[in-house]
């Protein structure tokens, strides 16, 4: 008797229905990561490098192909839906941002694989920007032994694949728990990658520790916020939270005591916001960016600066646009303040920087502020504008950091700005390309930076945020100053006798820089198609 009652009381647990096709872009990347780990274990050392690159690129290519297939098949528009029991949204913004992330990752892997920049002489074998063994100092016997015996940090490729997988999931996550898991999945490999620089080892490890500690804090904030919001809404589903916020949902009796408690909601949202603003590097959560950007191996910095920003802004957009549009009276003023602070502080602090990587770090802070102005618009044009900006910005960033890897002296990359004096006279082409990227950062017309900036400012202005646009424009003027200072230094200063040389890259880095330059010009001169794409994709599924 009792057994029968129990059987009736507990509904049968059926296996969840998983839409493998919709999830396939992420599965392809995670699959590549797992295969990469197996390769690390079983493939002989000599072949690991090529095998790992092959696996990573194949996984990314497959993922990008699947994203294209899904988008063409209508999953970005009319077939957009939630997959995996409502945990993952496969819709326009997801697919657009995932497409950008996979392309960025392809370029990043090409740069990770660059082995021609470090001189062979000291090591006896081609080495990349990563430390072969933790204790092997560059140029030492230990490193030479490690390099000649084929030790190399090929585990960066599976680590990168995990990070990319997490980044693909992050903007697509449609419940807070999935979002948190994605956040951790892409953050942890990044902490590791930051610590692996071959040169300036201490700086790199310091960067990794800082990034990890602060990142762990921000994750904790996010998790605590998640718990509070769950207490408020009785669900981690974004759409369900939105319903509760708007008072349309029935309340679960078990949570009746806390449900609808605005204190939980507001504190929870603030904490979620802290977690996300940390990841995008907005003021006042930007303190980690300069140190981490400077310390991490430059290819990793490029990857982190572009892909992390895309993923984190994607998640922020989904969180604010899907779960909390009903609360916009509360979060918009706060974001206004954050955006203004971010633009102004990023631009002004950047003026005093003397290191290229730190300069680009503060410039990325300022750009986070510009992107936030688009987020605040809270309408379709804002969403489209932010997505376009992210796509445009990430390729400029990748290209700029790729150029930084090429300007070298005996101690590796010459990142101090004074060393860049007269670069335009020594290698005009490279300096011209870097100038192009700087002009794009500065938002000069006919570059992608201008189109993106125009799009977000226009969206912000359309939603009535005129003051933000004015602050944005003024901080653009300040920002233009330091970008132009670098151009002056490269073209109008006399080269130093002991100045750095420009390493001749392999086609890998060449391709990365070339792609960055092409995208910068195309999105600046003929952005129509891509703006159309971003606009078409700019509708969240709930």
């Amino acid at each position, binding site marked *: 008797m009792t057994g029968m009652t129990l059987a009736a009381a507990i509904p049968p647990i059926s296996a969840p229905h998983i839409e493998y096709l919709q999830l396939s872009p992420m599965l392809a990347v995670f699959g590549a990561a797992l295969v990469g780990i197996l390769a690390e274990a079983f493939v002989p050392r000599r072949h690991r490098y090529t095998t790992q690159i092959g696996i990573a690129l194949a996984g990314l290519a497959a993922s990008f192909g699947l994203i294209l297939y899904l988008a063409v098949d209508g999953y970005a528009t009319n077939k957009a839906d939630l997959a995996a029991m409502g945990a993952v949204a496969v819709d326009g913004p997801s697919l657009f941002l995932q497409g950008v992330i996979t392309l960025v990752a392809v370029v990043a892997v090409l740069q990770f694989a660059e082995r021609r920049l470090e001189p062979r002489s000291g090591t006896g074998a081609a080495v990349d920007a990563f430390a072969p063994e933790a204790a092997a100092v560059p140029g030492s016997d230990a490193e030479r032994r490690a390099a000649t015996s084929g030790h190399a940090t090929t585990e960066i490729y599976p680590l990168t694949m995990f990070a990319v997988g997490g980044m693909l999931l992050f903007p697509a996550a449609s419940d807070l728990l999935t979002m948190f898991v994605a956040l951790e999945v892409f953050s942890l490999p990044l902490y590791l990658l930051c610590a692996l620089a071959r040169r300036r080892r201490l700086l790199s490890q310091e960067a990794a520790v800082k990034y990890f500690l602060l990142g762990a804090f921000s994750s904790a904030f996010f998790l605590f916020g998640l718990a509070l919001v769950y207490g408020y809404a009785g669900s981690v589903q974004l759409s369900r939270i939105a319903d509760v916020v708007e008072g349309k949902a029935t309340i679960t009796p078990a949570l009746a005591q806390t449900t609808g408690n605005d204190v939980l909601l507001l504190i929870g949202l603030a904490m979620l916001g802290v977690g996300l603003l940390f990841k995008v590097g907005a003021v006042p959560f930007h303190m980690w960016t300069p140190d981490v950007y400077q310390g991490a191996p430059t290819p990793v910095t490029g990857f982190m600066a572009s892909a992390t920003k895309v993923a984190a802004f994607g998640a922020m957009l989904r969180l604010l646009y899907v779960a909390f549009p009903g609360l916009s009276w509360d979060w918009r003023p706060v974001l206004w303040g954050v955006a203004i602070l971010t633009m102004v502080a990023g631009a002004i602090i950047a003026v005093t920087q003397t290191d290229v990587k730190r300069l680009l770090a503060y410039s990325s802070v300022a750009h986070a502020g510009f992107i936030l102005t688009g987020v605040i618009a809270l309408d379709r044009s804002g969403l489209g504008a932010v997505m376009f900006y992210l796509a445009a910005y990430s390729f400029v960033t990748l290209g700029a950091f790729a150029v930084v890897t090429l300007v070298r002296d005996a101690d590796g990359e010459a990142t101090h700005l004074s060393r860049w004096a007269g670069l335009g006279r020594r290698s005009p082409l490279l300096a011209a390309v870097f100038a192009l990227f700087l002009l794009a950062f500065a938002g*000069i017309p006919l570059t992608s930076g201008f189109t993106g900036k*125009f799009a977000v400012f*226009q969206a912000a202005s359309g939603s009535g945020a005129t003051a933000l646009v004015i602050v944005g424009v003024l901080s*653009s003027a300040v920002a233009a100053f330091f970008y132009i200072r670098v151009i002056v230094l490269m073209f*109008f200063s006399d080269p130093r006798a002991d100045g750095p040389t420009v390493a001749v890259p392999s086609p890998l880095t060449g391709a990365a820089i070339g792609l960055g330059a092409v995208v910068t010009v195309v999105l600046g001169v003929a952005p129509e198609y891509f703006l159309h794409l971003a606009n078409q994709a700019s509708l969240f599924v709930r």
Partner: protein
Amino acid sequence: MSFPILTVAAALPAVGAVLTAALPPATNTRSRDRNKVVPLLFSLGTLVLACVVAARYQPHGARYQMTENHSWIPQFGINYSLGVDGLGVVLILLTGVLVPFVMLASWHDADPVVDDSGTFERNRRTQGFFALILAVEAMVVIAFEATDVFLFYVFFEAMLIPMYFLIGGFGDRTKGEDARQRSYAAVKFLLYNLLGGLVMLAAVIGLYTITHTFSLVSITTALQNGSLHFSSTAENALFLGFMFAFAVKAPLWPLHTWLPNAMGEATPGVAVLITAVVDKVGTFAMLRFCLQLFPQASKTFAPAILVLSVIGILYGALLAVGQKDIKRLVAYASISHFGFIILGIFALTSQGQSGAELYMVNHGVSTAAWLLVAGFLMSRRGSRLIADYGGVQKVAPIMAGTFLVGGLAILSLPGLGPFVSEFLVLVGTFERYPALGIVATAGIVLAALYVLVLYQRTMTGPVKPGNEGVGDLKARELVVVAPLIALLLVLGVYPKPIADIVNPSVNQTLSQMGQSDPTPHLTSAHSNAATTTTGGGQ
């Protein structure tokens, strides 16, 4: 579809710029000259196209002619739409005329360094200089043609980049030349103009938020038939945003401080390009965008702008009198002249505006003549300080003579081009603001002072030590100077062709603003005189 002459006129120098930059670097004198002849031919081709545009233009036809319209970024309602009115035609012509002369005058300014063994320094510096000039020309031409606010903005901003490299990258190899000063001047130029441009960007976005279009024609039509109405706060704010950018570019006192630096450090040819061509985009845009898009705000702010421009006239002239450096003197003289142009524009009378539009042409030609001859002089002695010269007319009479004619044009001697325009501007201003007209007239007196004192110090008197070897103008230099002086004479004696092109669009602009000339209230004799003056131009 008709032949897209306007696109071609802008595309030709652009193609020339790319082609010139792509030529192989010079290895000997022949290839060096080839690398300079190619861009010169492109600039002459552009001049031919500019003449075709002028010939096709019908002064009494539609407001904008030879229009082209293509969708560019439909998401933001941005179109690639071109069209010229009278002022546009005249300024395109001016650009087309001046650029070949600037190139010829700057023939050796960027020559490659040759070492003792006669080997050329192998780089693209020389051709880069000429390619940049062509790039500036292309962008200036398209700015004069654009009838889409956004399209205009894009090229208004983008032309800063080649200008910046022209100023910062190519010094004039004279005494007192300092690479640091030059890069300071280039950066100052860029930052001033970029700030102006960014403020304008905010206004451009604001305009779009209100009107949802960038088309100049649709906005002005909507304003006229009343289907669009700006609130006065919005209109004032947008006007100030646009005007700020144009006032930096033009430049209007007190936003002028970049000009003496930029013109002082640039080569004489580039200095002419700045003041005679690029800065005209600023005054042109005041007429085309500020007045037409924001008629009410233009009227509101006109008195303030007039006061600033009169200050600019006197301030520029006074500082010109005190300069020790020839190029800075010319720069301050230009600030004074831009004051006159802006005065004419915002007096909002038909004489004033016709005068201002003629003034843009005359100022371009006269400054080019004056400054290019001064450049030839400076290149001989390797100094730009007035104190280093004296008695040049004894050793180089032709140079001294052409320098004098150029200077007389600058001080508006009757019979030379600028006189007509300056007179019209003053008459037009006097009609509505007699006091300002009277004060501005003092600028003419000061102009006589700085021009003649400069002439006296450099050309007359005993030959100063070091000046004995100053040779007279060479054939290439005569080819530059003679046509410009001829042009000044033609414009001074018979300005009718230009006035005919310009006047109808002046009247259209004023009628769009709902502004008519004040009724003459002085004695009949005086008003007759004023009518005859404009009558000459109709």
